[in-house]
């Protein structure tokens, strides 16, 4: 139940800079997902917030109070470690009771918390097992439980669902979301799984190589990725990128590629006229239209691979000098695509993303 603010956090392990000027804030009671590829410093951010790692520079504020010099035990945070960090000499139940000693609860309250967490995590038959007798997924649930039995200022969850099977993972992420909302406890949630991130987040922080690349709601991050990295990281299959040259012809700006010529919308025309350079055009796989017959402003391409998913199709297409992916709802497609078939391709004009080639920043 605190508002978290990080300002200019810099962390270095030896010579390697792990966090570079990390700044963002999380409003009171919201769930913030930190995501990014492996080794981008997500876990280190959590450790800094918990006080386990001391940053070289920068400040951490809880509700506007400086926390840098507050020892971890006094920050009142509950953390679920990626490596579980279960106490090996205690049973599941004892592992969960351990953090409750410090909370000095009445026996009834303790029992209630224990029962709640047991049913939540489906651990009834395993309460008296030792961590060594549990599988990875079960151990992870114990680790998650040890954080969730508490009512701290802040939950720090480091890949809390990474080892669970798909069904349990979907169920658990909904449960975590529910708990977090009803208890109104600010949560930092680390995951590299971006579907999970999109599903639970109020706010997303996308990181790469120790830098914050974008902070925003899941929709913002998805619909208006601020740079090439975020655009490529969020969304499966990833966004198609086409390096294009900007050319003017008859008062209109065209984006030209060996395979196609694209006429952007008027509002983007102005933006492009200022730049008049090469840029990168990004189109998400679901913003591509396919048609079996020639269309206006369409270019031809061949279907190479068809990957049927549950209710959609992922098609790999090859045009002249380009390979790109298209995602389609099965019932939205007016025809039955077949491998090797020639189709006509159009990009949805409202949903294009334009990036500067040098800075890789978005400019539309």
């Amino acid at each position, binding site marked *: 139940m605190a508002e978290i603010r990080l300002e200019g956090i810099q962390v270095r392990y030896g010579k390697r800079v792990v966090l570079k000027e990390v700044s963002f804030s999380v409003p009171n009671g919201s769930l913030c997902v930190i995501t990014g590829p492996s080794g981008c410093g997500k876990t280190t951010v959590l450790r800094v917030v*918990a006080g*386990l790692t001391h940053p070289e520079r920068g400040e951490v504020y809880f509700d506007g109070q400086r926390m840098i010099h507050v*020892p*971890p*035990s006094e920050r009142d*945070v*509950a*953390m679920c*470690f990626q*490596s579980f*960090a279960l*106490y*090996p*000499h*205690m049973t599941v139940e004892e592992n969960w009771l*351990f*953090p409750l*000693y*410090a909370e000095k609860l009445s026996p009834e309250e303790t029992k209630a918390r224990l029962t709640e967490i047991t049913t939540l995590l489906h651990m009834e038959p395993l309460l008296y*097992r*030792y961590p*060594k*007798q*549990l*599988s*990875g*997924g*079960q151990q992870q649930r114990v680790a998650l439980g*040890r954080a969730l039995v508490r009512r701290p200022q802040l939950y720090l969850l480091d890949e809390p669902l990474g*080892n*669970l*099977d798909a069904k*349990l993972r979907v169920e658990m992420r909904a449960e975590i979301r529910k708990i977090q909302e009803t208890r109104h406890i600010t949560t930092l949630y680390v995951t590299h799984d971006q579907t999970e991130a999109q599903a639970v987040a109020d706010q997303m922080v996308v990181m790469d190589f120790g830098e914050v690349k974008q902070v925003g709601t899941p929709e913002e991050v998805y619909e208006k990725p601020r740079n090439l990295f975020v655009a490529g990281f969020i969304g499966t299959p990833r966004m198609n990128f086409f390096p294009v040259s900007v050319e003017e012809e008859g008062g209109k700006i065209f984006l030209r590629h060996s395979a196609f010529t694209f006429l952007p919308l008027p509002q983007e025309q102005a933006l492009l006229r200022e730049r008049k350079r090469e840029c990168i055009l990004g189109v998400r796989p679901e913003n591509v239209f396919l048609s079996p017959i020639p269309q206006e402003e369409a270019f031809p391409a061949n279907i190479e691979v068809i990957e049927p998913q549950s209710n959609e199709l992922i098609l790999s297409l090859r045009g002249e000098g380009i390979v790109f992916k298209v995602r389609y709802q099965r019932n939205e497609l007016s025809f039955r695509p077949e491998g090797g078939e020639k189709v006509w391709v159009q990009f949805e004009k409202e949903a294009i993303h334009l990036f500067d080639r040098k800075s890789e920043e978005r400019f539309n």
Partner: protein
Amino acid sequence: MRELNQILVPKRRSQERWFRFLLFVPTMVFLVLMVIFPLVYSVNISLYDYVRGREPRFIGLGNYLQLFQSEQFWLVTWITLRITLTCVAIEMGLGLLLGFALSQRIPGMGFFRLIIFLPMMLAPLVAGLFWRLLLDQTFGLVNFFLERIGLQPVEWLTNPRFAIWGIILTDVWQWTPFVVLLTLAGLGTIPPELQEAATLDRAHPWMRFKHIYLPYLRMPIMLAVLFRSIDTLKMFDVPYILTGGGPGDLTTTLSLLGYRNLFAFFKVGVASAISWFVVIIVNVLVNILLKILSPKRKIPTETVDTGL
């Protein structure tokens, strides 16, 4: 091909068996020559009235009976046990404390960690000599400082009350570092994230010691107690060099008694009997200590595969 295999496979199997046995032979030869034969031989000797230069005479358990009736023998046994228990207790307590202190990540600790192991590297005889000089009544450093701070000088090595403490002091000085070493090793095996989890769970120091440190220190502690009690029960060199067993027999250990019987009185049979008595005492005491120290509850080590 299959027929051939039916002949070749069993043949190779039997060859393998022979080879395995062959690898075993050197160990067996070594064990028999160096351990089993001397042991059996010394049991045998302890059953004879055997004084060097005389014909050995079989007397059954006569040597043992003679020992058990001797007041001196029981005094020496009692002194040995007293030295052992006192030394192990002090060394464990001090060693654990120092171990915890030295495990702190404070700059400069590496240097202390290095020098604290120095006593352990000395030969016990050297350590004994060293302390004999330090504790000397007239020109020893210890008494010098005692006088300096206005206390009476103590007859460390000749006073019946203090002589045993001179021995204990030397042993503690030399072997506490061993306990420190094992403690540090044990503390080093604690996963750091476990301590971090305990920190975030706001465990107070006692809980932390009981649930995080102790489980990882149990094995090192057991080892240290074992090694130290076995070693002190057999202690010979320190009293030999420091006090010569005196005053009277007040610092004579069982090993020293055995040595005297063998090399001063040439009573080979009695000396063997004493040695065997030491073996028995060591076994009994070690088993008692293991019983006391082993964990009250068994944590199953087998992993159960239960799917996810």
